[in-house]
């Protein structure tokens, strides 16, 4: 019943990758990339999060049900964020009514 046992070396390399990515994040913040600073920071964070979820949390070796729970949480998070963004992004865009003659 011991489930999937990952080799120690895998954990150390994930740790190394996470540290390198953290360094890259800090470094990238000091470079002016214009509008791209935030998306790059978030992309790196998401990549790091993916590594943690897949390897430290063993989702890569987990049942389909566990994967489904992960996807479900992201799906509903996307609904929450997406629909609120829809409102805020379209604020101030008025519907132009046809003028009566």
């Amino acid at each position, binding site marked *: 019943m011991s489930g999937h046992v990952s080799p120690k070396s895998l954990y150390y390399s994930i740790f190394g990758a996470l540290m390198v990515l953290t360094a890259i994040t800090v470094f990238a913040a000091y470079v002016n990339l214009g509008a791209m600073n935030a998306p790059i920071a978030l992309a790196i964070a998401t990549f790091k999060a993916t590594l943690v979820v897949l390897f430290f949390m063993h989702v890569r070796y987990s049942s389909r049900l566990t994967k489904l729970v992960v996807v479900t949480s992201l799906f509903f998070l996307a609904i929450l964020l997406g*629909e609120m963004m829809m409102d805020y992004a379209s604020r101030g865009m008025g519907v132009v009514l046809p003028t009566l003659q």
Partner: protein
Amino acid sequence: MLDTPKLPERHYLNNGHGLKSWLLTKDHKRIAIMYLISISAMFLLGGLFAGAVRLELMTPEGDLFLADTYNKMFTMHGVVMVFFFLIPSTPAVLGNFLIPPMIGAKDLAFPRINLLSLYIFWLGAAFFFYALFAGGVDTGWTFYTPFSSFSSNTNVIPTALGAFISGFSSILTGLNFIVTIHRMRAPGLTWFRLPLFVWAHYATSLIQVLGTPVVAITIIMVFVERAFGFGIFDPTRGGDPVLFQHLFWFYSHPAVYIMILPAMGVISEIVSTFSRKTIFGYSFVAFSSLAIAVFGFIVWAHHMFVAGISTYSALVFSFLSFSVAIPSAVKTFNWAATLYKGAISFETPMLYAYGFFGLFLIGGLTGLFLATLGTDIHLHDTYFVVSHFHYIMVGGAIMGYLGGLHFWWPKLVGRMYSEFLSRVSAILVFVGFNLTFFPQFILGYMGMPRRYHAYPDEFQVLNILSSAGAGVLGIGYLLPVIYFLWSLKRGEVAGPNPWGASGLEWQIPSPPPTENFKVQPVVHGEPYEYTPHVAREANLV
């Protein structure tokens, strides 16, 4: 009938006596009974606040209460009814009691967490009672900012924390159900052999675990504003109060489905049993529960059409809101088709189910008026809205809850209640409900706004009708307390299956033994197998 049934010698009620054996129990059935007692008390309290509101509204002048007191009355009515009665009602009582026996399990997956959820519920209620005795709260159950954060001088923090804490009770119940339904089913009990009650609770649990955390964080943000002077929704510092409404309704719209979905599950069981027919379109009814749960999450901003959201997103939300009507209609039509050519009998649970059909239909269809952007501008914040959601939350959810309570009462306690009195109460509830709330549709349409303690003279006739109806409704709700208590000692012994129903829970003794099943059951058949033979036999009983 061969011989009169006897109560089993050992069952969950007499397995251990004294307060300690109840307070430390891990038995899902005892926890359900403690939930039943707790939420019944809360229902009574919420009913008293509703009575106070209706009493004030009998006259156009605000003569009974000051405006501030009136604000507290309807706020506490809403808080008690939503957070401490409707949200736990069917899941925490009937779901808790019935899901393990329905799926052939000895208990829920996490019995200790189940007990913990009850204690958390009590802790939340304790916070609410503190707020109540400290002078109440006046923000409306919706806690809208900035009023709740900065302006109101009433007990917002304890009330909001009470709602926050009881939310965790709801999350834990939902989590427990999800795991139980996934992992504890008896051999042979595949997903498509599950009772629809279980499907409905699965969908409900999804909403509980997905929605409740969002309202929890929202309450925390209000808390830090009020307690520490932080500014997140504060317009004087550039914050957006509408953001609060977005986050609040992301939970609180689906919360309505936490109330109505379990009731729909109950109705599916009752309709099939009392028309002695398998449910029509099983998989459609099952999946429509999931569809309601999912669609419920994409429509919330129809509560905010006049709050200042963008015109385009209002159009989108209006359009999306109609999607909820589809699975709801699928259910309603399937129930109607189940009734068609059934051997229908009119015992009390069935009367409640019929009441549910009528009231849910009206509640659901008036929801479409409110989802329509144009009409909502006119109807928003009027009694039309009040009436609409009471048709769903009281007419739908409570009718389903009471129907389920009457249906499974013999399983809960092993004895029958008075059939005559219970039919009278079902009819009183239906008549009283319509008398209370139908006039409010008209009042709302004529423009009477909600949440005021005074109104123009011409609205008085309809308001008096409504208040009179509330009295009838109150009697209808009190009657079951009397005959249920009476049945505990004097009721006729019910036997395992008084209705001739088909579910697994009816094959074990009433009341069930602590471990539910002596041996692990194995399921071979399909759900709702009512053969003509069973029907004939049941009709004879």
